[in-house]
């Protein structure tokens, strides 16, 4: 039953992915906080690496034997998983419980997102809104729809080449033309610079790792970073406070119990209205070398 003894099998691989992600996650978390690394491309790259690298290192062959685990490996996780907790329970029972709960959480999260996905009404969008959207590069064929949602909501769906912009009635009624422009610019930024493809590719990898919380956390953080990058792209050269004000209204309209959503909005608003200039990101070479070190080290943990 010990996951580390499920070798060689796909279950053992899944356990190794979770193990490697946990070790790498701890190292990156401490590193980022020690450096005081601000939001930005370095954080996004590290989070993306955290979702990709464990899938690679766990697949390195030749490590499934007991001899490797006991004599060559830096850490044999079978020992850790076998630690007794009393009443016949061991650490691996807790690990299996966490895996099950995380899987259920992922299913619930995705089902809720699917059920609450924005739906456009059949009615035509205002011509000015269509003009606003289709004037943007790559959005010439954008389908614009209006939903009857009274809340302030602007979202996109579809695929590159055929994007779909959905604006709620609440947004149309409450946002000024400038505010609507900057919100649409934010949505448009999601479709530029390969962001759509990267986010969807990472989403697939995150679904493959639906059972471990590190992937859940890493993808969520990646999405927050992506939102902040799109905020910055949408307000580049313009008034950052304009988008900040819109986000503040969404923040105020968000249920107080939805702490996670409010925390993300707060972070985005702080980034937009904050006076401090963002610190320079780490050099790309640093991220590449750090990732390479992880690629070399993690296979020795089984």
């Amino acid at each position, binding site marked *: 039953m010990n996951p580390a*003894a499920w070798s060689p099998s796909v279950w053992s691989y899944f356990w190794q992915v979770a193990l490697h992600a946990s*070790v790498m996650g701890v190292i990156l978390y401490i590193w980022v906080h020690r450096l005081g690394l601000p939001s930005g491309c370095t954080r996004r790259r590290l989070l993306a690496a955290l979702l990709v690298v464990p899938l690679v290192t766990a697949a390195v062959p030749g490590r499934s034997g*007991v001899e490797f685990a*006991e004599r060559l490996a*830096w850490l*044999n996780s079978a020992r850790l998983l076998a630690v*007794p907790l009393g009443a016949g329970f061991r650490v691996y029972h807790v690990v299996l419980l966490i895996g099950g709960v995380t899987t259920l959480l992922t299913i619930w999260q995705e089902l809720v997102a699917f059920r609450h996905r924005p739906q456009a009404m059949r009615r035509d969008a205002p011509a000015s809104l269509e003009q606003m959207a289709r004037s943007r590069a790559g959005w010439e064929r954008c389908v614009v729809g209006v939903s009857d949602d009274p809340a302030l909501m602007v979202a996109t769906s579809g695929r590159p080449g055929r994007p779909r912009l959905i604006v709620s009635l609440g947004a149309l009624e409450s946002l000024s033309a400038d505010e609507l422009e900057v919100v649409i610019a934010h949505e448009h930024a999601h479709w530029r610079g390969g962001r759509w493809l990267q986010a969807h590719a990472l989403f697939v990898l995150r679904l493959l790792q639906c059972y471990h919380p590190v992937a859940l956390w890493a993808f969520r953080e990646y999405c927050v970073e992506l939102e902040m990058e799109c905020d910055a792209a949408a307000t580049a050269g313009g008034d950052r406070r304009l988008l900040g004000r819109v986000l503040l209204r969404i923040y105020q309209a968000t249920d107080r119990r939805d702490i996670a959503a409010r925390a993300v909005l707060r972070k985005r608003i702080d980034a937009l209205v904050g006076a401090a200039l963002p610190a320079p990101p780490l050099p790309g*070479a640093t991220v590449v070398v750090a990732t390479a070190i992880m690629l070399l080290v993690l296979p020795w943990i089984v």
Partner: protein
Amino acid sequence: MDRLRGLGSFVLIAAGVLVALRLTHYALPVVFPETRQGPIAVADLEEARRLVGFDPLVPAYRPEQLGVRPSEMTVTLSPYPAFAIAWRNAGHFLSVTQQRGGPRPLQPPLARPLDNLPDSAWWMEDTHAHLALSRDGFWIHIVTNLPSRELRRFADTLSS
């Protein structure tokens, strides 16, 4: 060096985490002896093969008085992978332990090689005859209370 700014702290933190993991690796079996991997009872040779990662050797020759089925099959995963199989029946006993790697098992000073069997040593301990031999990176230890002449036949018929 500016191109690798921040890498030094990454290396330090990674090293710290890895040292902590290594300490955990060593400390756990000391604090919790039950986390040692074995002995684990196995149902058949296939399961033993899957757990220890090598083909278990079993003597094809077994006197009838030992019975047909083994009374015990276990694997030990730490510190060296090992497989042990034993037959007990009506006061008769035979056990074969096969360990991959590790130092040569201890042998008494009076142990002597079995004729025409290289890398072997046999001895008597009370009523039990012992035979230790080395084969292709494995240490094999045979113990029986059957007549000591049977040791050679057990050793000669070891097969996977």
